[in-house]
């Protein structure tokens, strides 16, 4: 019996250790692309504001050589986020599945390329492809790969994952660093996984006049990273095609910067890479946890899908953050049941051990799937749950449950009396 009471403080201690905040150094903004030495015909750049309040409109204007294509690259200069991708798709050439895992922590928290208005058609086409659109292909089609520079040289770790390694929960063996070209192409895939939609990564809103002067109205959406943003203009003056090879002549402008400011209760989530008005998750969590108690279950399975659909939060962060919030409620629940000796430790620990192993593997899988797969799988889980809930409201179940509840009350009463008598 004493052992039981020794287990609880140990669990509590483990919890405290778990909640100790992770210290993670924030890298200073070194990822900004070095400004190209201004060439004689480099485009000029002007922005009409130097600071924004949680997003807003900014007008970029300037003059480039006449007849050139103008691309405007906007990115968060000092906030970086994590992006990862698991490559489990069969390679069409070799017929093998690569099982490679790519991860970077250097992805700019915001990244967008503005392209000339007349390329809108391509973007509309890409949007029609839904979630299957390919960032690198679209970039190439509209020639915007000439402007793609900020994420092109980020450090990407790549791992060879194996089934065994996944079970142990490691990312696999770290492979040698990729060359510049492979890094660039992988960075596009990571960027697509991170920013998801065509509209987030590309916008056709640069107006170019015949004399080369241009203006681009750019809207920084709300809930983006605070801090410094860099804007660079790339003017493609000439494209020379020789067979398959294309030489692109381009000139870059100097870097213009603006600041995005946010104020409490909107705060920047370092790991998620977005700002969020903290009142919303608070109210949502409050409402759902009350509802969860009325229902006799936790609320995580309602809270998580709502969080991923309503907010620009990555599914990994949502899953990883909601889980610890229920830990405390579970611990108090266990303590209360234990007081009246309403827990069979042999049964609980027995099945608990199996669940321990499952809990070890699950979070690894979260990391390996994309948001769309997450939503798809979760959708089915919810349908099953809905069926379970429905079954619990059928007359047969209710009648049976009534009996059980009566027995349970009787047992509880006895248990409480026994506990009182002892105490």
């Amino acid at each position, binding site marked *: 019996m004493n052992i039981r009471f020794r287990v609880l403080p140990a669990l509590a201690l483990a919890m405290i250790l778990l909640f100790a905040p992770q210290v993670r150094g924030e890298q200073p903004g070194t990822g900004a692309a070095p400004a190209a030495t201004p060439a004689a015909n480099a485009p000029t750049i002007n922005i009409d504001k130097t600071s924004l309040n949680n997003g807003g409109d900014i007008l970029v204007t300037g003059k480039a050589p006449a007849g050139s294509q103008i691309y405007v690259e906007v990115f968060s200069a000092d906030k970086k986020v994590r992006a990862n991708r698991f490559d489990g798709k069969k390679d069409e050439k070799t017929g093998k599945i690569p099982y490679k895992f790519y991860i970077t922590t250097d992805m700019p928290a915001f990244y967008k390329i503005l392209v000339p208005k007349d390329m809108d058609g391509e973007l509309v086409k890409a949007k029609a492809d839904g979630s299957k659109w390919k960032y690198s292909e679209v970039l190439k089609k509209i020639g915007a790969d000439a402007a793609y520079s900020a994420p092109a040289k980020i450090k990407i770790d790549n791992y060879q994952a194996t089934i065994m390694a996944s079970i142990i929960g490691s990312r696999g063996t770290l492979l040698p660093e990729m060359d510049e070209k492979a890094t660039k192409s992988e960075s596009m895939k990571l960027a697509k996984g991170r920013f998801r939609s065509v509209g987030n990564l590309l916008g056709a809103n640069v107006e170019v006049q015949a004399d080369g002067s241009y203006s681009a109205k750019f809207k920084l959406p709300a809930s983006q990273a605070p801090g410094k943003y860099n804007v660079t203009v790339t003017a493609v003056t000439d494209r020379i095609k020789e067979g398959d090879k294309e030489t692109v002549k381009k000139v870059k402008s100097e870097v213009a910067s603006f600041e995005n400011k946010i104020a409490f209760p909107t705060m920047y989530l370092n790991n998620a890479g977005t700002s969020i008005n903290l009142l919303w998750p608070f109210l949502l969590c409050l409402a759902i946890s009350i509802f969860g108690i009325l229902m006799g279950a936790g609320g995580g399975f309602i809270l998580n899908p709502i969080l991923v659909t309503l907010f620009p939060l990555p599914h990994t962060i949502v899953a990883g953050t909601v889980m610890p*919030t229920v830990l405390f409620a579970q611990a108090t629940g266990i303590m209360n049941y234990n007081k009246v000796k309403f827990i069979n430790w042999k049964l609980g620990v027995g099945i608990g051990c199996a669940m*321990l192993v499952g809990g070890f593997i699950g979070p690894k899988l979260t990391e390996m799937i994309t948001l769309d797969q997450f939503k798809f799988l*979760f959708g089915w889980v919810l349908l099953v749950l809905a069926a379970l809930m429905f079954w619990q409201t059928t007359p047969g179940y209710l009648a049976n449950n009534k009996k059980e509840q009566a027995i349970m009350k009787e047992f509880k009463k006895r248990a409480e009396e026994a506990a009182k008598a002892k105490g």
Partner: protein
Amino acid sequence: MKVEFWGQEFEVNMWVGCTGGFLIAIMSSMFGFGGGPFMVPLMTVALRLPMYIVVGSSLLAIFFNTAMGTMRHMQFGNFDLILFLAMFPAAIIGGYIGPMIAKKVSPTVVKRIACAGLLLLGLNLLGVY
């Protein structure tokens, strides 16, 4: 395995219990919820245990999963402290308010609402609408 509870003995098929628990744990830790709504039916239906032994013991089993899942999510850097601090107090306050309201509403009605809500949410995630 034989389990004794309040003077009654139950025969539990641990193979079924552990396999089911393992699968539920993978799923729930992957999506970041507790797993109670799956564990209770598993233990009552598949293991044929009465409700009064299931409520406490399933909570204990789930706690193992949540603790491990939390640790692993943190290891992978999936934990955001600020978001956590915004939701944690809400969960605790909810934990106090919930039981107060619970006496006044019928759990069957709540479950029916939940069922409809889950159905809508699930179909939304699947992109049906």
